[in-house]
Each structure stands twice: as structure tokens, then as C-alpha cells.
């Protein structure tokens, strides 16, 4: 397990991203301090997923900075950002379909445990990695599906595995992109509990559509509208903000 530094924070400074002439992210500033759980909400097409893609290195930002614990990570490759201590999940399930649950999780932690590109050690001999994998497997409650191929899991099991792979490397900053997308109400309630359990002590950013999930999971809420953060505050204050209600919450809140 990598050590979690005392003050592992994530900071976005005037982050911008254009696709062609269209500016999707229009100067986002956000400072998340260590151990904080931030929910990112906003209407469809507001740029929430793009923001995650910029932070995690899937896309390079057009301008601006991303600081992970004070170090600039913007423009770096996803694997470099992951090694620096940031790990993400995907809205569309991104597991290794032809590998077993156990193998999926182990693939998630091999790098962080220092095994890298080794082809001179046997996997079966990596006691620490294998024990950690078993721990993870019971954390995400998939012990019984140990040898099942990820492709054969149910949808919500695959979502659990997705989270498992994301936290496997022990990254102190975790980005979850709509973790409960496509789940039923009761499934997502259990799932939020699971997410809380496995991310204890970590800095967590979650994009989520389900307001119940966001307010259950987050200490602070960032509201993204048209590529800008229009509010970043405690859940109750965000709820009360008339601008937020006008832009977004008014309709969505009534639904939840």
C-alpha cells in the first residue's frame, strides 16, 4: 500500500478545454483538500465528465493547471497521473472482460506494489499482491465470484469490480464517474454504502446524476453549469443558493 500523505489535495486553476471552436470547460477553479468528499453535479452536457477526463489525463487541457498535492499533472499521460496518486473509474464499465475477478483486481494493483513490467517473477509467488487482492475482493464483496470472468458478472457486480480496480492501487485521490449509473434505487443505496466504506480517508470526487446519491456521499458540492463552477460549498448552502436552483436544482431536486 502506498502511503497517504498528510495533505493530499487536488487543485484546478483556470482549467479550460476546447474541442474545435467550442469551449467546453471555461475556466474552472476548484480546490479540494485532503480527505474531502466532493460531489460534482450539473445538467447534462455541462462538462462534468470532460472535467474528469482532463484531471485524469484522458484529454490534455487547452490551458490552465491541475495540481495534485502541489505537483502539476496537467498534460501528463494517464499512467503518469495514476502513478502520482490519482485513480478513476468510468461511467461505462471498464473492466477486463476475459480475466477473472481476482485477476482484474490484481491487475489494478501490480504497478503500485512495484511489480511493474516484471517477467521474471511468478504471479503466484507475489504473496503481498495476492493477499491484498483477496482483501480487496472481500471489501467489494465479490469473494464468491473469485474465478468468474468479469464478462459473466451481473451489471452491479461489474460496477463493484470497477470500483475495486479503481481503489486497488491505493491511490489517495479517487475520481468516480457516475458510479451508480444504471442501477436501481436499492442497488445504488447499497452501493453508496460500499463506496463510503472503501474510500475511507481518501479524497473523493464523484460525478453523479442521482441527487440522493450525491447528498448522501459528499461533504461538499460543486455545481458545474456550461463549463463553469457556479458554486462550491456545503450541501445545504448549495441547496439554498438561488443561482443553483435556477440553473439546475430546481427541476432535479423536485424529482428526488
Amino acid at each position, binding site marked *: 500500500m502506498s502511503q497517504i500523505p498528510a495533505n493530499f489535495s487536488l487543485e484546478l486553476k483556470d482549467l479550460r478545454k476546447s474541442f474545435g471552436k467550442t469551449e467546453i470547460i471555461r475556466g474552472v477553479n476548484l480546490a479540494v483538500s485532503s480527505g474531502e468528499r466532493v460531489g460534482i453535479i450539473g445538467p447534462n452536457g455541462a462538462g462534468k465528465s470532460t472535467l474528469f477526463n482532463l484531471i485524469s489525463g484522458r484529454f490534455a487541457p487547452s490551458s490552465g493547471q491541475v495540481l495534485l498535492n502541489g505537483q502539476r499533472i496537467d498534460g501528463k499521460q494517464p499512467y503518469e497521473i*495514476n502513478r502520482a496518486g490519482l485513480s478513476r473509474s468510468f461511467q461505462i464499465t471498464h473492466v477486463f472482460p476475459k480475466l477473472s475477478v481476482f485477476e482484474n483486481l490484481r*491487475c489494478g494493483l501490480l504497478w*503500485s506494489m512495484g511489480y511493474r513490467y516484471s*517477467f521474471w517473477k*511468478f*504471479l503466484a509467488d507475489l504473496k503481498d499482491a495476492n493477499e491484498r487482492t483477496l482483501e480487496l475482493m472481500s471489501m467489494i464483496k465479490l469473494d464468491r465470484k473469485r474465478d468468474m470472468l468479469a464478462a459473466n458478472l451481473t451489471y452491479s457486480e461489474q460496477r463493484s469490480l470497477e470500483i475495486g480496480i479503481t481503489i486497488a492501487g491505493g491511490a489517495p485521490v479517487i475520481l468516480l464517474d457516475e458510479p451508480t449509473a444504471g442501477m436501481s434505487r436499492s442497488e445504488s443505496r447499497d452501493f453508496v454504502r460500499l463506496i463510503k466504506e472503501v474510500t475511507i480517508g481518501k479524497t473523493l470526487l464523484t460525478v453523479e446524476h442521482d441527487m440522493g446519491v450525491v447528498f448522501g456521499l459528499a461533504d461538499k458540492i460543486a455545481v458545474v453549469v456550461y463549463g463553469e463552477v457556479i458554486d462550491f460549498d456545503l450541501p445545504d448552502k448549495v441547496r439554498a443558493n438561488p443561482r443553483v436552483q435556477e440553473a439546475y436544482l430546481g427541476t432535479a431536486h423536485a424529482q428526488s
Partner: protein
Amino acid sequence: MNTQYAYKPANVGRWLIWSLFALVLAGAPHIFTSGLGTTVLTQMGIAIIACLSYNILLGQGGMLSFGHAVYTGLGAFLTMHALNRIGEGLPLPVSLLPLVGGLAGIGFAVLFGYVSTRKSGTTFAMITLGLGELVFALSLMIPEFFGGEGGVSGNRVTGPVRAGISFGPPIQIYYLIAVYTFLSVAAMFAFTRTPLGRMLNAVRDNPERVEFVGYNTRMVRYIAFILAGFFAGIAGGLGALNFEIVTAEVVGTARSGAYLLFTFLGGATFFFGPIIGGILMVLAFVLLSEYTQAWLLYLGLIFIFMVMYAPGGIASLIMMNLRLAKYGRLRQIWVSYLGLGVCALVVLTGAAVLIEMVYHLQLGSVVGPQLQFLGLSLNAGNVNSWFGAVFVLLTGLGLFELLRRQFLREWSDIQERIEEETKGRDLL
């Protein structure tokens, strides 16, 4: 808790399989004692290494290469040149020459892989195709190295003879190749059990996800490509020692295509698939080509048939039936197998008669329209022979299709029952 993940450290089954493999390699030339037998077995060893090395790319890494012969072929050329240097005083035993091929494979894979593994998928495939053509074109342009049309030849009986082993007699070269085959197969199997081997599977399954767990997918592909190049080079070096001549065709696209075709036929999804593929490759090239002029056509037909009906290759057919046997369901379906087999044979006979008659008319008509095939006397100039063949073919096809549908119903029924059984076990 801590024994759950270890796959039975002292695995008796594994010891048994590897001992059996060694035994087969050692004993085979005593069963097939003819000159042809030794020739075929020797080439099988080489083909097994080549196909397995190819499968590091195709089956384990999801990299479709059209230029694997570059690495076997250049390995062969460099081995041959090294062999010829031994006569001039290079202090290297002949038994280590295949490693020269392996090093050449590494060298060229480092060079070419740097370009090709930057990309994956179709782009990777296109780059390997281009590199294959490039090397083949070079082989005709640089006769000093590639020997022009005549190729480069050498004599493997050179240097000091130790303990009566000169590698002159075919049986001695067979055993040299058998030792290399055993070690290479073991090493490549071991590779699949290492962190890099597993991450290579992950890159095959979902390259983007791999980037987000800390791995540079390009580096994973690159290292795997170099390892594949090493074993390919060893196979090439062994081939050079075996044939004592290397011509430009060993780096050609046709050879690369053969590795792809037979690795696929054997089965890319299981480790042992390419071993079957390598064996089939030699049987086709040495035996089938003796038997009929139209062998490439048959090969093409079989390939199309397998792609359509059994994309996992022979290995996956074997594994699916082993699964059936494990749950004691094989006897429910063997009648269908028998029926399918008989029908396939009928189809094959009809098609083969047609193909042979066409080939006979095109290529052998100077000796008259009569030809002998499977003990039949056919007359390619006679309408009756054509009608008969078409009739046999169509009947066979119709029956095969009917039986196939019946078979599919039975098959899915059995699979469902097995699913239910295993589900029950999971809940226990």
C-alpha cells in the same frame, strides 16, 4: 486464507503434463522411425516455437501481426551467417547457434517494434504488414547478406565434435531441436504466469483501463513484442540449422500468413492452441502438399470453415468438450458428433472430387481426362463425374446443415444444464 490464491504450489497435474511433453519429444522419433518421420518431427518442433511466439502477440496481447516471419527469417539468416563464420574460426558451438537467431530476433524486434507497438489494432497490423514487405524487398536488394535467389547455405557439421555429436545425422539435429522446443515452450508458458504476461492480457482486453492503473500500454506491448521476437528468432535459427539453407522466402508475407493461419487454427485463446497449430502447419506443408496440388485451396477452405464455426480454433473445441466430459454430458452428444463427422466427410468428398477434377483439367490434362482419386476412377471430361460430385456435395451440405441445427439445440440445452448445476454449487 494465504493458500487460497496459490494455484497448488506442487501441482501434480502440471508435473505430469510437462513430463509427458518431454517424454513425447524424446520418444517420438522412436515411433516414427522413417526418414520422413524424423523430418516431419523436426519441423514440428520449429513450427511449435514459431506459432507459440506468434501467439504472444495474437492471443495474449491482441496484436494482429502480418509480419512475424521477419523475426523468424532474420533469425535464420543471422544464424546461417554465424554458422559459416564458425568454419573461419568463430569459437561458438553449433548447439548454441539458435541463440544467435534469438538475439537477432530481439534486435530486430527492438528496432521494428519501437515503430509498430506505438499503435494497436488495425494500425499495428498495417505497420507490421508494411515492415514485412520492406524486409522482403530488402532481401532481394541486398544479395551480400540475403544471398539473392539462391539464398545462403552452410554446413552444420563444423567445429569440434564433442562426444560423437556432430549434428550431422538428422536424429541428432532432431534432439537439439527437441531440447530447444521443450525449453522455449516452458519459458513461454512461464511468461503467461508473470506480472507482465498478465498485464499483456489486460492490454488485450481493455487497453484504456490499463493506462489508468499505472501501466504504459505501449511499453507492455513493446516488451512482449521483443520477447516474441526472441523466440521467433530461435525458431528461425533452428530452421537454418535443420535445412542448412536460408532463402528470401523465410522473411516473406506468405510465411507470416502461415503463422497467423495455423496459430488461429490451433487456437489463439489457449496456451496449447499454437502447439496444435504448429503440428498442423507441418502436416499441411509436408504431407498435404505431397498428396494434392490443390492443398492451399483446401487449407483456405478449412480456414474459412473454422473462422465461421469455431473461431476459438481446435484448442477451444477441445476445451469445450472437456468441460462437457467433466460434467458427464459428453455421451449425450456423441451421436450428433458422429453424424456431423460423417456428413462433413461426404461434403469433403464431393468438394474434393470437384476440386481435383478442376485442377486436373487445368494442370494435368496432357495425360488425358482420367484421374485416380481416393481409389475412384474419375473422368474429368465426362458430365457424369461432375454431376455425381455435385450431387454428393449438395447432399452432404444439406444433411450437414440439418444436423448442425439439431446439434446446436442439443449443445445449448446441455450448456444451460451445466450453468444450472454450477449456479447451484455457487450458492452452497
